[in-house]
């Protein structure tokens, strides 16, 4: 079965989603265990695949047994194997979390919810592992449709946000489709690697059509990832969606789109085209600087917890886009590493927000009053996530910033470095505001005599295990990703080293 592991990554959740749809209505109880089991399978498959990629190099999996330009293939190298692990891992943790949240938020549509949830993950995984530009579009739409629905299943305000998302998301996807069409018209191929070969073979890099294709695809992907001026759909969608939806969309949707951007920029167009021929990196890095700052500052203005986190996502997207466009080894390594790290960080904080919402029914940060006393373990989870977002060692967030800043320094983009630092500081302000509220809200009872009454005993009211476990597991993952960043970076470097940038980092 190891041969088939690449396909199983997404087939397992896919099949199970259908079973959930078929059986879920009658036996509501099976939805949750089935989903979790399938995602465990998916994680196992993606880890196996990653292991194979490390040992054997790029894996090519031909669907339908057809030779690549005719048929569709999965082409899995270090980059997407890694991202696939992250996606399935985040999916699994979010699924575990969903147990109570779904029952609390969408009690009458459990089976639909899980079907869509699994299909979303299927779509995201499919986007990550596919090697075909058009197939990517189809899976993009699978994940888009599911995410529209997952958001619209939320309360009143979510519906309008979902509507906006439908419109803007469709524009983004259509732009992408259009760009693929341009590429197809010029190269006659849809396979990403083949397109690149054709571009070289026909030597049409300076054709305006390719340029337009590049612009259109990039803009389309940017819309989908909510890169700053194109971000309008994101905050409301994520803030008002059911908590499980935002716990899965927040970390994954944007990150996968960043992966898509990296994949298209490097594999389809090639780094020579993107960075040497176009030489736009200055402009785009500046745009990302604006994105980082705008995201962070808007986050400061929010009192709604999840809305604040949504704006942070926008800032984080800026990190990654900027990191890629630094045109520096280290910047790219940093961006890819940040995809992984940020997926878990965002998951961590969104899970936290979800727990708070389900527990208290409030979305405001004032709901956090005295939480250190009431839910100490939950707060521990948040602390790790927050430290990671701020960039305090040894959490994963620190190291991604480390690499990104290193890239910024090496390529001389000081404005990016400064923006990154400012954003870290703003994150610090944001999270310490939360921590402060949680810490000061209720003063624990004063000690009496020698029998100190202790904070931890004064009636903690923890979230249930199924919610707490993913949160703490994510927090642990953040630490592990941080401590073993060397190994992850080694994997990433094997991808990055294919491209020789002008500036050589470390």
């Amino acid at each position: 079965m190891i041969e088939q592991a690449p396909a199983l990554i997404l087939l397992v959740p896919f099949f199970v989603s259908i079973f959930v749809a078929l059986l879920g209505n009658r036996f509501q109880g099976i939805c949750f265990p089935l989903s979790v089991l399938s995602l465990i399978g998916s994680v196992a498959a993606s880890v196996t695949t990653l292991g194979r990629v490390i040992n054997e190099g790029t894996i090519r999996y031909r669907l339908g047994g057809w030779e690549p330009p005719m048929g569709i293939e999965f082409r899995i190298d270090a980059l997407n194997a890694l991202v696939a692990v992250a996606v399935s891992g985040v999916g699994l943790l979010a699924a575990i979390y969903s147990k109570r949240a779904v029952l609390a938020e969408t009690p009458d549509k459990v089976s639909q919810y899980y079907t869509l949830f699994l299909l979303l993950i299927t779509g995201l995984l499919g986007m990550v592992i596919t090697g075909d530009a058009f197939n990517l579009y189809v899976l993009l739409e699978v994940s888009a449709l599911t995410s529209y629905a997952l958001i619209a299943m939320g309360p009143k305000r979510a519906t309008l946000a979902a509507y906006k998302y439908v419109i803007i998301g469709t524009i983004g996807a259509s732009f992408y489709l259009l760009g693929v069409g341009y590429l197809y018209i010029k190269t006659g191929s849809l396979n990403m690697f083949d397109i690149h070969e054709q571009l070289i073979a026909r030597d049409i890099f300076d054709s305006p059509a390719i340029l337009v294709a590049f612009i259109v695809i990039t803009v389309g992907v940017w819309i989908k990832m909510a890169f700053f001026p194109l971000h309008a759909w994101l905050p409301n969608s994520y803030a008002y969606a059911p908590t499980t939806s935002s716990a899965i969309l927040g970390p994954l949707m944007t990150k996968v789109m960043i992966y898509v951007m990296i994949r298209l920029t490097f594999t389809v167009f090639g780094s020579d085209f993107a960075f040497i021929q176009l030489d736009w990196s200055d402009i785009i890095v500046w745009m990302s600087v604006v994105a980082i700052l705008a995201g962070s500052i808007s986050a400061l203005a929010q009192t709604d917890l999840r809305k604040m986190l949504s704006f942070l996502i926008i800032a984080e997207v800026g990190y990654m886009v900027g990191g890629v466009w630094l045109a520096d080894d280290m910047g790219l390594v940093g961006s890819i590493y940040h995809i992984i790290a940020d997926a878990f960080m965002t998951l961590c904080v969104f899970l936290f927000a979800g727990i708070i919402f389900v527990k208290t029914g409030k979305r405001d940060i004032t709901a956090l009053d005295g939480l250190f006393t009431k839910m100490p373990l939950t707060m521990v989870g948040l602390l790790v996530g927050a430290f990671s977002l701020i960039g305090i060692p040894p959490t994963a967030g620190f190291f991604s910033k480390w690499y990104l800043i290193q890239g910024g320094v090496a390529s001389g983009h000081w404005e990016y470095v400064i923006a990154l630092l400012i954003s870290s500081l703003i994150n610090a302000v944001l999270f310490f505001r939360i921590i402060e509220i949680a810490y000061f809200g209720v003063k624990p009872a004063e000690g009496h005599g020698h029998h100190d009454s202790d904070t931890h005993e004064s009636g903690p009211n923890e979230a249930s295990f199924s919610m707490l476990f993913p949160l703490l597991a994510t927090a642990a993952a953040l630490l592990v990703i941080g401590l073993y960043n060397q190994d992850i970076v080694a994997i990433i470097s094997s991808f990055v080293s294919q491209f020789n940038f002008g500036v050589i980092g470390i």
Partner: protein
Amino acid sequence: MSSESITSFTPVFASIVSLLAVLPIALLGKKPNLREGATFVAAFIKFGLVLSMLPAILAGKTIEYTIWEIVPNLEIAFRVDGLGMLFGLVASSLWIVTSLYSIGYMRGLKEHSQTRFFSFFAVSLSATIGVAFAANLFTLYLFYEMLSLATYPLVTHHQDKEARIGGRTYLTYLLSTSIGFVLPAMIFVYVKTGSSMDFSSDGFLNGHIGATEALILLLLFTFGFAKSGLMPFHSWLPGAMVAPTPVSALLHAVAVVKVGVFCILRVYTGVFGTDFLQSLDLGVVVAWIAAFTIVVSSLIALSQDNLKRRLAFSTVGQLSYIILGAALLSDRAVTGSMTHIAMHAVGKITLFMCAGAVFVATGKKYISQMDGLGKKMPITFAAFSIGALSVIGLPPAGGLISKFYLVTGAMDAGQSALLVIFLISTILNAAYLLPIGYRAFFPKDPKLAAEPFSWKNTQEASWQCITPLSVTAVLAVILFIKPQLLLQLAGLMVGGNG
């Protein structure tokens, strides 16, 4: 210099022993005596471990241990040398006394959440020793941040409005400077040198960067380690005085602030290298900033009525002595500043503990309320006076030794203008510290003055409070008489520069 190095796990263990102690402390939360027992055991083990490394260090060796490489060419590594040893000794020995003191203080005031208090206290110590024994800039930064965060719950222990404001200032200053200044500076160094950023006795930046870059880096590092309280990034320290006194005593007279200056010393000697800085003549800039801080903070201290705040500003000034010494770059001055770490630590912790003891016993916070208290609390105020003498730099206390070295170092460096600063500040020190002790024993109010002194009327705080402060007061005197150990350790660092 470090021709010989020993690989040993001891420094790592010395650092994490208190981290490990958090577990029993937290678990024994319901049994205060056992819990404090755990603290003591950890404190003694820690001190023992640090002490056990002393002979090797004195023999001119270093002890190293690398945990693992975390970023290419960059590892979490420990290395013990003279400076680290000196600081480690100070911090770990004072932890023992402070632990005893905190028990007295916390129980005396029936504070809440004592388990949390002791847990984070232990974590802070772990971070402090981690900083002391860090082998490279990265490890240093790691523990530096850990210390900032671990002390936050301690500073805001009271969880009231004042604590909230103080805590906010505390974190704002410490985090923004460390993330905003140190991190980019560190990454810049990393990118420029591509090296592991190991501290070496004569710096590793030489030859990698130009003068302008060096100046920028120097300033980034100097201000970035805001724990050193250099103006204008000093105001977290008075803000942090909302913390319970043991915290102020150990952390804000010893561990935290000394970590700040320690980092600066490390960066000057280990990253830039004194020779390099001297060749660029950069020390002067910092020296004058420090001099400015000394004078201004002393003046502010004069105007404070809250005892702890006065002490805090005094600390700001005293820390700048250390920075000043380091910035002068002459051997004697650097020796002076290293010894001053210890001298000031012992002196200032005494003062803080006295302030705490007064508060525990009488509930008085303000200097103006302390008239005549000396008769009620003779031991406390005796100790206070000794501490004050040490901080001012008068015999029979250790502060004299380090000041002596600093002053002669300034002369060596040819900065005679700074002598004036030393002079002025010493007078100011005397002016803001001596009257407290004096008025406690000899109140102006004739009615209080007339009160006869008798041991029966004394109102000292509990023995747990009194013992530690007496110990440190005695220690201050001992350091005056026998400063050789410190000088020897400091000499290890300076000697190498030849």
